[in-house]
């Protein structure tokens, strides 16, 4: 078959180093999930449309299904598993709970990482721009309103912290 020679890659996920050996064609999403065992990042389409696989790479949201693991070699990757610190939920996680921003929870890690990346860079983002940014990802359960509400609530909280 077309199995190609594996290459060594170092992924730094939530501050932890994973030395893995993968085929060059292996997507970052598959590597995070299968080679590093971090299954909180979900795969919904593998076409870069749904955003369920969104992670932060050097602080910027990225579709991990559209990147190869080798492209993330040595970069700082953040996933949903790294959001809560010291047993304390991130304000976005708390707001998603408080605002009922999730139902089945499959898209949630992607939305959390997308919103984290955006609010860290643009803490004062306008409501209009926020809806624009959140339209990057798909949710099938909530109709988005409670996700928007949750991100607004978390933004307020993060600004006051």
């Amino acid at each position, binding site marked *: 078959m077309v199995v190609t020679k594996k290459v060594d890659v170092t992924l730094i996920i939530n501050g932890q180093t994973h030395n893995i050996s993968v085929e060059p064609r292996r997507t970052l999403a598959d590597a995070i*999930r299968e080679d590093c065992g971090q299954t909180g990042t*979900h795969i919904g389409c593998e076409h870069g449309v749904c955003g369920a696989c969104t992670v932060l790479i050097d602080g910027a949201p990225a579709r991990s299904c559209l990147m190869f693991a080798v492209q993330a070699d040595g970069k700082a990757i953040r996933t949903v598993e790294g959001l809560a610190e010291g047993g304390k939920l991130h304000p976005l996680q708390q707001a998603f709970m408080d605002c009922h921003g999730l*139902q089945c929870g499959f*898209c949630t*890690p992607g939305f959390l990482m997308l919103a984290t990346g955006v609010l860290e860079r643009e803490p004062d983002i306008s409501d209009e721009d926020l*809806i624009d940014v959140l339209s990057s*990802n798909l949710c099938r359960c909530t*109709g*988005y309103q409670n996700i928007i509400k949750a991100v607004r609530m978390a933004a307020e909280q993060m600004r006051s912290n």
Partner: protein
Amino acid sequence: MSAHHHDIKSWVGRSIRRVEDPALITGRGRFTGDLAAQRWVSFVRSPVASGRIKRIAPPPGATVMTASDLNGVKPIRPMLHKFNYIPICHPILADGVVRFMGEPVAVVIADTEEEAEDIAEKVELEIEETPPLIDARAAIGDGAPIVHHEAPANVIVEGRVKTPGFDEVWAGAAHIVSVDIRSRRQNALPLEPRGAHAAFDPMSERVTLTCSTQMPHLMRTAIADLVGIPESDLRVIAPDVGGGFGQKMSLTPEYVALVWLAKQLRMSVAWTEDRRENLIACFHSRDQYVTLQGAFSADGKLMALSADVLANIGAYSCFPTTCAVEPLMAMAEMPGPYDVRAYACHARGVVTNTCPIAPYRGVSRPVITFALETLMDKAAKTLSIDPVDLRRHNLITTFPYTSATGLVFDDASYRETMELAVAALDIPGFRHRQGEARKSGRYLGLGIATFSERTGYGTPAFAARGMEITPGWEVVDLSMDPSGRVEARIGASPHGQGLRTTLAQIVADQIGIDPSKISVVHGDTDRTPYGFGTFASRSAVIAGGATLLAARKVRGKLVQIAARLLEADAAEIELEDGAAKVKGTNRFLPIEQVARAAYHKAHLFTDLGPGLSETASYDPAGTFSNACHAVIVEVDVGTGGVKIERYIVAEDAGRLINPMIAEGQIHGGVAQGIANALYEEIVYDDTGNILTTTLADYLPPTSHEIPAIEIHHLETLTGDTLTQAKGLGEGGAIGAPAAIINAINDALSPFEISMSEIPATPQRIHAALQQSGKWS
């Protein structure tokens, strides 16, 4: 009706946070695709819609199985005993013939998923193509290709109803109004596609199938039957399931193949569906034509309804409901919330060379409500009556009401929800604004849709359809352990609905403990009693009712034991705040001590029996929730694009156990209804090839397209369910297409356009404007 008058101490009625959330927001959810496996499979799928398989040639050295390898595995053969249903077989892998693009013809087994996919691409298929049949109307036309030889006319289910004296009523009507509508094909589109992991345990010789399903127990029954093993040799687990909406309630051949492979290979085997497979080969929905005629008196009373329903059911019938569910539900519920005594309907399901159709949120009612509510608007125009007045004149207002098809409607608020929605809209104000906007070439429109949603129905409703498998009841096993913690084991199988939280609220009120001390276990056939899973807006009503009954039994026993331990009369014992208290005194026992006594001092209560485990079942006749959706849209006549300016839902689902969760269901349902009305469509070309194979083509709406939804609640406390709750999971999706199309038609009334097809895409609206001759 009451609006939120709940006992302050009651857990029911409160918007408590969901117990499901902590794991899901921290990445600790467990979905099928998270499991590692020894082998991975990939399915080789038919690239054509119709043909005879001449040759399947795997690459050398590959492990590839075809139909002839599946020794002794039976085809899926869903069964209905009424309505001229013709049973057809659905092979696990195509057996000599392919009937739709995407049908599995072979399965590749390899060490990794990538390798399996590489091999699948190299399997050579030689298929002699035969003329495909794509459209339902073509299926009943002369000389149509035959999809299954058992059904030479392509009609595999057919129902007719005509009330006595119908023709006389029809002949006496002042006006006959008709609509001819079409709902194109949709995909329910859970964000997690299908997936299955089947693991053979050499010690017990059992297989554990972990899969993304809404019906774990029925999956076990069906797969054990087809593979030829006792049910006790198969354990089915539905772990976290990333949405279902109906698509994951039907049995898929892929899951059957996985169990068979795990048994053959004596190891673990996994499959994760990709999005393209989900769009072409997982169940589709809608795809119906409805011709609906209403006979009205001169003053606007609906005297008779006549319907013709033609449902494209795809290439195979779905298990367990059969494909009859769509046309037969349409036939039974077409009159909706209106009082009409004369009714005739002809409903058919036809096979075509397209992906099989299965229930999807709303099942037939989004389509029939679209037909009925556009008919009401058209009738209002024809009779020069205000559309709200026409509805006022015809909505059911006295209960119980027995419909022309024999359905018994319990207490509801059809008129009241409409009045609420209409009041919120401020129609006179809107009409003024609409007039002003038109002067500057902007087209605003207002639309409403009222509907009934039959929910929480037990075996009688399913038995009326003649289903071989008659679902309906639910069982709950509920126990308090010696430490005072409660576990409820349920046959329902939630996948996003927050049922663990709502059931815990019901139990908490009965046993007087905090919901955090109650766990609800579901989705594992080894751990839960047999049940039918979660679908048809049934779980809060049916599993909720069974939970209430089981909790009352455990409560009764706790009270008896506490009374004896506290030397009080049982009538004086109350359970609250985690204790058994003697009313009006300061005597109490922590509930843990009562629980411990039930297990460890059982010799003191020999008449009660040891322990604190009780079982209850519930099988209700059903109830009807109701709502009115009211929408304001703006149509861009240059592009044909539609923007929703305002969306109002006035709904009544009886008692709301957790209003936050109920509103979440409404939001999600409406979003899917908006998708149905404006955006989503599975498009086949004339050869039966699907053109919409990515989410960028299929167009599920984003946060841009879904507006804020303004919700008004009424709570008619039905006596027809134990919890006084009515189901509401599907309602949002039911009302939206009708309300939106009515709003579009109102906006475009200067052009005398009436959209009759969903989704009303910019292309369709633009084409209608051009054809109107009134727009340039």
